[in-house]
Each structure stands twice: as structure tokens, then as C-alpha cells.
């Protein structure tokens, strides 16, 4: 019990130090990484047009750099996801989750696309949350 209290105290001190530093406050502080980063909702289609789509999903906090990229690998053959779309988002250090949204341009009308999603830090380092293969069709 005492050990637990000590840990909680140390955590509280560490968090307060992070938040009390003006430099951290102004230059996008890093976000704490969840013990196991995973997709908690989605991925799902937010919008699908004949030539355009947005895919969104939510993960618990991936941590790391303030800017992340949502990454969608897709194709018309579920075994050949040879195209990539990625969009930047900003992590919010005050949030316990992150909503990723990725724009997909240049799609073909009335076509079924297969895709998986992942996310990376700004330098390309993956968050290892790759989803199973899903699909959607453009109108």
C-alpha cells in the first residue's frame, strides 16, 4: 500500500513538473504513451464520395511526438494493399485518446477498396496498432 502511494506521489510530481514547464506548455508537450496502444473504436468510414473518402478510428494514447500520422494502406485486392494515404494530426496531451482521420483522394467511383490502418510518429516510427483488413465501396 505504501509502495502504491509512493508511486502515485512520484507520478503526480512528474506530471506536475511536465505541466509546469513553460517550454513544454508552449512547444507541444509529448503525450504519455498508453501501456498498450490499441484501437478502441473503428476503423470506419466517416465519408465516402465517388473519388474521395475519410477513414477514422480512435486509439488510446500512442504517445511520442506531438504530431502523428494516421496511415491507411489500401487497394482493390485484399492481398495487395499497395497504395498509401496518410494525414497528420496533433495529439492532445490532455486527452486520454486520439482520433485519427485520414483523407483518401483519387479514388475510383463504384469501387470496393480494402484497407488496414496504422499510425506513426512524425519521424515515421510506427505505433503498432495495425488493424485487420476492412473494406468499403465508393458510390
Amino acid at each position, binding site marked *: 500500500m505504501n509502495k502504491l502511494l509512493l508511486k502515485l506521489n512520484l507520478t503526480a510530481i512528474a506530471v506536475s513538473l511536465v505541466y509546469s514547464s513553460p517550454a513544454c506548455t*508552449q512547444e*507541444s508537450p509529448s503525450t504519455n504513451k498508453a501501456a498498450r496502444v490499441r484501437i478502441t473504436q473503428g476503423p470506419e468510414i466517416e465519408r465516402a464520395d465517388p473519388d474521395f473518402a475519410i477513414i477514422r478510428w480512435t486509439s488510446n494514447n500512442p504517445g511520442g511526438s*506531438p504530431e502523428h500520422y494516421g496511415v491507411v494502406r489500401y487497394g482493390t485486392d485484399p492481398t495487395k494493399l499497395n497504395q498509401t494515404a496518410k494525414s*497528420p494530426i*496533433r495529439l492532445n496531451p490532455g*486527452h486520454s485518446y486520439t482520433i485519427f482521420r485520414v483523407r483518401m483522394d483519387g479514388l475510383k467511383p463504384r469501387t470496393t477498396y480494402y484497407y488496414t490502418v496504422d499510425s506513426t510518429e512524425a519521424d515515421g516510427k510506427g505505433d503498432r496498432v495495425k488493424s485487420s483488413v476492412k473494406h468499403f465501396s465508393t458510390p
Partner: protein
Amino acid sequence: MNRGTLTITISLLVLCTIALCITLAARKVSGRNSEAQTSAQAYNPYPAGILPSDLNPEIERVRRELRVLEGRALARWRALKPPILTGQPPTLQNTGTEAVETLGELMNYDQNISPNRNQACSFCHMPYAGFSGPIPSVNLTMIAYPGTVHFRAGKRTAQRYTYSPFFPVLQYNQVQGLFFGGNFFDSRSTGYLLRNADAEQAQHPPVDTQEMGFPDTACVALRLSQAEYRPLFEQVWGKGSFDIKFPPETERICDTPGGAAVFGGSATPIPLTPEDGTRANTVYNHWGQSIDAYEQSVQVSPFTSKFDAFLKGNYKLTADEMAGLKLFDGKGNCNSCHLDGRGTTLKSGQTDTSAAAAVNPLLTCFGSANEGLPLNPRNAIYYQTTPDSFGFTANPLGFGYRDLGLGTFLRSGPGSAPNPNSTWTQFAPSTDGQMQVSTARNAAMTPPQCPTTEAPGPYFQKEFFHNGYIKSLKQLVHFYNTRDKYKYNVTSGHCPAGTTEKVDCWPMPEVPNNIDMTSGNLGMTDKEEDQIVAFLQTLTDGYTTPYPNRDTFTGTCMTGGSAKTQGNDFLIPTPQLPPCASAICGVQPVPKPAIP
């Protein structure tokens, strides 16, 4: 003296007097011509309606207001107790801080720092607009402000320079993989030499061809050497500051705007010796540093808003303001980049009891983002495709111009500045379209008699984002909230029948690459948008103490209409766009994917 000699002497005196009178009269007429060049010799390549009909009187109004502000600054200087230079290193004891800040203030309002002596820095940055654009009709129409040569104009809105001194020197953080800092929307003022991005920012407009327009940085030294406040400059920066032997042709050169064909592309047409060139450069550096001192002072960046009082515990946010703050931190996700220093994210029903993480949050992350603004066809830059009377053409690319922001700067591209760090160039494709995240502070500042930016008012018409496409804070929040929900594959002015642009139709982005997806479909209600606007209005300085010089607006407030559709009467159809010009999109490393 005999009678003949006397007659000759008197005759000569009379002739001299007549000649002097003629010369003085000619000078007076010449001066008036300079004032009246706006209408007589104006460069006007614009189709009807791009320039606002009240442009000339509005320019003169702002110039009158500038003279009031300069008068106040002169009075401040004259009332200043001289500092004492003492100590080691030598320091201007007691009033040194106020001396350099006042010097910067005097410079900021000095209309002599332009070839036609008709434009000061603050012409585009007046206090009552939070040091952004002071002419409502320009904010509604041509977006960029006319420069010393009427009517050359730039390409972007006049960025507020409150809190700009707090931005660090531009840095690429290798660990984070991100750029931080710099000044200007495209961060081109890096601060690489002065180690001060804001001081370097102040150095750009005096030699920007479409702004104050000197052809040579040494012209700043020349005009400062003639300024009424030269003694203050010498007191702050040293007696020998102006020991520069300017060649006889210097005046003529500095009376001619930059970009004139007569200069043959030279950036240093004044033939100074290397020693005098160095002295002139030193004056030019001190120009930037003095203005930075003013901009960082409580005259410009005082941290006196309601939100600052709230952080101190001296102001209780109203229900709507508090709801707006919760949304700003929560559902709106605004503080993922407009950092407000708060430590928690509140859930429904919770009360914010957290200690403030910072007492002076700047409401920016010093980063850059592409928010996907549509191309604004009203922007004056697209129409300046033919040479003016000096042989200068601002934009030969016409509508082939695309504003890639930070990406163009990293490529040292047209309309930006040379990139001083070639190791950054590789990052251009991942920064195309990105513009600096401005502080949200003072976005809502207006003159006291027009107390809001929002219709029906009475309101002061501002313009938002780099290209002025957005005309009210309501529209700004609605854009973040619904950009992707109401996305249409059209350009501005072509929303489908049955939709209303900026309400339930957002045209395609000018730069489709690197669009930030943190926002765009936030699911906020109309009321929640209004609450964020209410919170943004708490960020206006002047609550705890009056904001200096906010009282100088002598123009007219606007009334009527709705903030949702504010300015929509001035929408014009975007013409068929040619491809992005190769001078912009064909420069290595080229944008990926290619920009249409």
C-alpha cells in the same frame, strides 16, 4: 556703392527671391503629387470590384491615425528621463528598457520608412485591430494591403504581431520531426543571424517590394539618420551609429521603390564602401531589435485579457465562456495546438479545479499546419501580372500561383525568402501548405466603438487565416467543426445550388497535401461553436488594464447580417485555375503528391 551697382544688386536679390519662391512652390506641388499618386498614377491591374471603392479615403484615414500615434510616441520620448549609461558591461540604467521600447514605437509609426514617405509598419498593423489590418473594406475584398506604390499589394493577411516576439528562432526538432518557431505565416523570418525571429521579421517589410518597398536596406539607415528621434537612437545604440558617408545619389535611390527595372535586380544599389555598408547593416539590425522591444513590451503584448485574469483567479468566466474553454480543451481539440496551459480535460458535469499549468500561455504551439483553406480569388496577388510604371511585376504566375507556405520557403521559392539552411529543404514536401499556428490571443480585438468582430454588430470587419477567406470568428470555428462534413469538390464561388458557402458548403482546399485532420468534423452544435467564440473573446488584452492606443480608430463600424454569412456578399467566382506553376510546384523536392 554707386547707383548702378545698387540697381544690379537689388535686381539680383529680386530674381533670387522669385527663383526661391518658384522652387518652394514646385516642391509643395511635388509633395502634393506624392500624396495624390494614389489616384493619378496608380497601378491598377485589377478587375472591377477587387479594390474597395473607399480605398483612397481609407488609406488617408489610417495615415491620419498613424500621425496621432506617432505624436503620442514622440510625447512619450520627450517625457522620458534619460537613462544613465553605466556599469560593466555598460547598461542604460533605470529607463533603458523604456528607451529602446519607445524607440521601436517611434519607428513603428514612422511613415518616412518608405520611398514615398507614405507607409509605416503599422499601416497594416494598427493597435485597435490587435495589430492586424485596419481597413474593413480591404479585409473584405483585396485581402493584402496596398504598399508604398499604390496599388501594389502582397499576398497574405496582415498577421497580428501581438506576442510574435515570444516565438523562438526557427528550429527543426529532429527528435519530434517538426519545425518550431520563426515569424510570418511561412516562418521565413527564421532569426538565424540575430537569433530573434521577431527582430528579423521587422526587417522584411521595409524592403518588401509590395509593402514599404525600399530598394536597399541602407535606406533604413538613411531615413533614420534624418528622423526627429535620431537622438534617441544614438542614445540607445551609440553616438557613431550614423557615421556613414552616403553617396550623393542615395536620396534618389531611396525615393525609388524596390523592384524598379532601373536597379537591374540589384539588392544593394547604393554604392557604399564595405565599412559604411557594415555600419548601415548594424543600423538595420538595431531597427529590427528596437521594434522587437516595442512589440514585446506591455504596449503591445501585455497579458491583460480576461483569460489572464481568470488564470490569476481574479475573473470568473461566464457560463458560456467556461463552456467554451471546456470545448476548446475537449471536443474542439483546439488546445492540441493553441496551447492554453490548462492541465485537464473536463468531462460533462466536472468543474475545472486544476491549477493553471502556465500563467502566460501563448495559445500557440509555435508549429505549422495546413488547415485546408480554399483558394481566395479576391486575393490581390493573383491580378498583378503586368508591370507597373517602374517595370515591376509582383506575380507573373497569375492564378498559377499557389501558396505552399512553409514548403515554398524551404525551397526558397517565389514570394518567400531565401532559406538559410539547406538541410531543411528535404522537408518541403511534408510541409507544403503549412502556415504558422498564430496565437489565438487578440483574434477578437476591435476598436472600442465597434466592440465585436461578429455581425450583426456594430462590428469591426476583420479577416482570418493567411488568405483572409474567413470573415468572422463564428465562421472560423464552424470551419474547424465542419470542413470535412460539408466538403464540396468545387472552388470558392461555385457551391451547388441549395447550399450556402461557409455554412453548409466548404470549397476544396488550395493545397490538398498535408491537411491537418485534428479537426474538420468535430460534431459540435451551433451553440457549442458560439461558446468557443465566447471563449476566444476572453483572450483580448485590455481587461485588467486599458490596451494602449486602442482608441485611435476614426472609421466606421459595420452593422447587420449574420456572423455565419458575414462577407458572403463579396464572394466572387474563382476562375478556371491553371495548373500550379512550375516555378512553385516544379522545384525540387517537388510536392508529393503533385499539386493540381
